[in-house]
């Protein structure tokens, strides 16, 4: 089975080629069959490979497949090779699994769109790129996938390019990602410069010998890689593109901007955990940025009225959690949250898509309300996802979030302050998510009559993926039960061979102070659950029980509220600090450097030759005899050269 590893990315690529080359020539049924079929087959292959991998002994869980040598130049030797280890196995399962469900969902969601074929071609290309990213066995191939998903993200955000805001959002995402990619490239160069290889295996093996632990070089390299991660995974300061990315079709938001692509940064850090473990300062930066982003985005999410924007900021916030986990060296917890988040956030987005579909493409929550009885399935599934993301015990989000919070408190890289940030974020998350639920599904129906007439539950192709994801959102957390429940954390064990440092450390940690820490863990867990319940109660009180109180509260806090609704004016700040100077500088380059200096130089050169030619053209008298004279004279010179030269 191992030799079929290449099929996992290849199948979506074939789907892309079929749909992409035959845009507008295939009937919709064929397009959707090809798109879903290719990803579905890929999922089946991925599952079979997963069981293959599972059958191997824990230390030998590695399937590698080298297709061919891609670049071979002096010491730079890069293969087009795929690597399946426990980490990438989880990633391909998430990508193909969630991807498949979203493909199926899209068949229903995009049914009325005129660019059906183009949409699925992009979606397949995205799946292919994402699989290349996670399966790559070296930095360069990973970068190919990294850029590929960035491209698809751009294409899909700007999918409805007739809309000015959509194409602007696409460009914004692309440009902001460029900044991050630049960091990634620099990090990659530093690593190559010192290690002389780009293979993950070689780098991990040689890094301890090449770099001094905690040294400047490794720290800079890790920080550069982290800049790449902040771009792709929407962390402070490069998160600004993700909320705007909601201009794309909703399934795209679910697949790319919630479940898979934005988690690439987390995956990358987990993949290079060996390097990060050697650079504690870089880890600290990761943790602080993660925690700060989590809190920052959550507060913005409180005051958004666009249903998708709430979810977008929620995504940024949850990604912050994952980075927090990575930053405290709890990489497997980060990946665990990545997985559960993929389930419930994809579900939330798809549910939101279902709502938007029902609301005739209206996204403002203030115009919704009372949708519970119209959209029973959507409501139920979204409620489950909301409970999961809020961290209600029993749902998947609880386990992963709790593990992160606990690790940020207990890990040797952790700190109480980090825990506090995460703890507050948990409360805020529960509050804004239930605000979303109450505004959307409860209360009076605030939409206009025309919209109301068209409200309907979504077709089967959309609701079935919702239900499957709902099931996964509930049970997805069971694979990673915390130790204190007396269960085995299968997830952490599974990832143990890949994560060199942390689990071992955690084990000794747990061994050393088992008694004291267990009670502490219980206390923290109850504290966060209590906070979440309070937040839910508050949301219920403000948006369900006593909406007048919400209004008066909003009036009292109108200053803060405006700031939040305007997203802390970060876009405006970037506009003033980054974009304006850049425009001024570009104008300088254009008007002064380009037009005057460069054009002036070239035009001067051209007019110089023009003048010289103008003087010389008189030699062309048009008289045959003068030409003949010159010609014969030339012959004489040539003959003289040979005759005299040979003697």
């Amino acid at each position, binding site marked *: 089975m191992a030799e079929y590893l290449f099929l996992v990315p290849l199948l979506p690529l074939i789907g892309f080629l079929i749909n992409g080359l035959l845009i507008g020539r295939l009937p919709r049924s064929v397009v959707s069959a090809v798109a879903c079929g290719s990803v579905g087959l890929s999922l089946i292959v991925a599952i079979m490979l997963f069981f293959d991998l599972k059958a191997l002994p824990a230390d030998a869980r590695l399937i590698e497949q080298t297709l061919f040598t891609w670049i071979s130049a002096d010491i730079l030797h890069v293969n087009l090779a795929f690597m399946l280890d426990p980490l990438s196995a989880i990633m391909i399962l998430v990508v193909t699994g969630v991807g498949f469900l979203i493909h199926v969902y899209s068949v229903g969601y995009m049914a009325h769109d005129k660019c059906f074929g183009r949409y699925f071609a992009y979606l397949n290309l995205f799946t292919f790129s994402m699989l290349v990213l996670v399966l790559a066995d070296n930095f360069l191939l990973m970068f190919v996938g990294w850029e590929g998903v960035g491209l698809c993200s751009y294409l899909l955000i700007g999918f409805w390019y007739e809309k000015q805001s959509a194409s602007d959002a696409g460009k914004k995402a692309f440009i902001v990602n460029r900044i991050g990619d630049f960091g990634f490239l620099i990090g990659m160069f530093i690593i190559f410069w010192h290690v002389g290889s780009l293979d993950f295996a070689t780098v991990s093996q040689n890094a301890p010998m090449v770099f001094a632990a905690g040294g400047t070089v490794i720290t800079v390299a890790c920080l550069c890689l982290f800049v790449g991660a902040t771009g792709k995974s929407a962390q402070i300061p490069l998160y600004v593109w993700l909320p705007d990315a909601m201009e794309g079709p909703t399934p795209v938001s679910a697949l790319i901007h919630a479940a898979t692509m934005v988690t690439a940064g987390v995956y990358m850090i987990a993949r290079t955990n060996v390097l990060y473990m050697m650079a504690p300062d870089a880890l600290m930066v990761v943790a602080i940025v993660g925690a700060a982003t989590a809190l920052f985005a959550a507060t913005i999410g409180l005051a958004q009225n666009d249903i998708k924007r709430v979810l977008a900021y929620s995504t940024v916030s949850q990604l912050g959690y994952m980075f927090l986990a990575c930053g405290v060296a709890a990489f497997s917890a980060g990946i665990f949250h990545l997985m559960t988040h993929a389930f419930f956030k994809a579900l939330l987005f798809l549910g939101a898509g279902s709502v938007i579909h029902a609301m005739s493409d209206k996204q403002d929550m203030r115009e919704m309300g009372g949708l519970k009885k119209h959209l029973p399935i959507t409501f139920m599934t979204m409620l489950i996802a909301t409970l999961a993301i809020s961290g209600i015990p029993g749902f998947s989000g609880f386990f992963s979030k709790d593990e992160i919070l606990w690790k940020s408190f207990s890990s040797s890289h952790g700190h109480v302050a980090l825990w506090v940030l995460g703890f507050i974020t948990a409360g805020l998350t529960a509050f804004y998510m239930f605000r979303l639920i109450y505004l959307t599904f409860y209360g009076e129906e605030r939409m206009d009559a025309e919209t109301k007439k068209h409200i309907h539950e979504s077709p089967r192709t959309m609701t079935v993926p919702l239900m499957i994801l709902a099931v996964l959102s509930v049970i997805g957390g069971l694979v990673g039960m915390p130790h204190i429940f007396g269960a085995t954390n299968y997830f952490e064990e599974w990832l143990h061979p890949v994560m060199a440092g942390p689990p071992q450390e955690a084990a000794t940690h747990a061994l050393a102070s088992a008694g004291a820490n267990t009670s502490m863990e219980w206390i923290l867990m109850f504290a966060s659950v209590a906070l979440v319940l309070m937040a839910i109660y508050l949301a219920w009180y403000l948006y369900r029980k006593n909406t007048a109180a919400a209004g008066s509260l909003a009036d009292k806090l109108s200053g803060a509220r405006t700031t939040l609704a305007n997203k802390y004016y970060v876009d405006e700040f970037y506009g003033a600090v980054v974009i304006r100077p850049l425009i001024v500088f570009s104008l300088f380059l254009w008007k002064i450097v380009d037009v005057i200096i460069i054009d002036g130089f070239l035009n001067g050169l051209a007019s110089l030759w023009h003048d010289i030619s103008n003087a010389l053209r008189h030699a*062309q*008298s*048009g*008289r*045959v*005899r003068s030409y*003949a*004279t010159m010609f014969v004279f030339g012959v004489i010179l040539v003959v003289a050269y040979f005759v005299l030269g040979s003697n």
Partner: protein
Amino acid sequence: MVPISAYLILAAVLFGIGTVGVLISRNVIVMFMSIELMLNAANMVLIAFSRALSIADGHVIVFLVLTVAAAEAAVGLGLIIMIYRNRATINIDRFSLLKW
């Protein structure tokens, strides 16, 4: 007996006269005839070497050159006739449309 070099020098002199003819002649037809003279000087060289080496291939080449000269004369004279029709002159200096 005459040495071959004598014939070669004769050919060189004829060639030089042809060159001067081309350069100084203002009459297209005379210019054209000077070119024919230069061709014949080249033929003379071919025949002289053919004789010196006792290889008759030079003769064949001369024959081909004569044929080409005939073709050239036909086309060239046709051109002269046409130019004369247009310009009513055979002064080569008047055919200077190709100047700057």
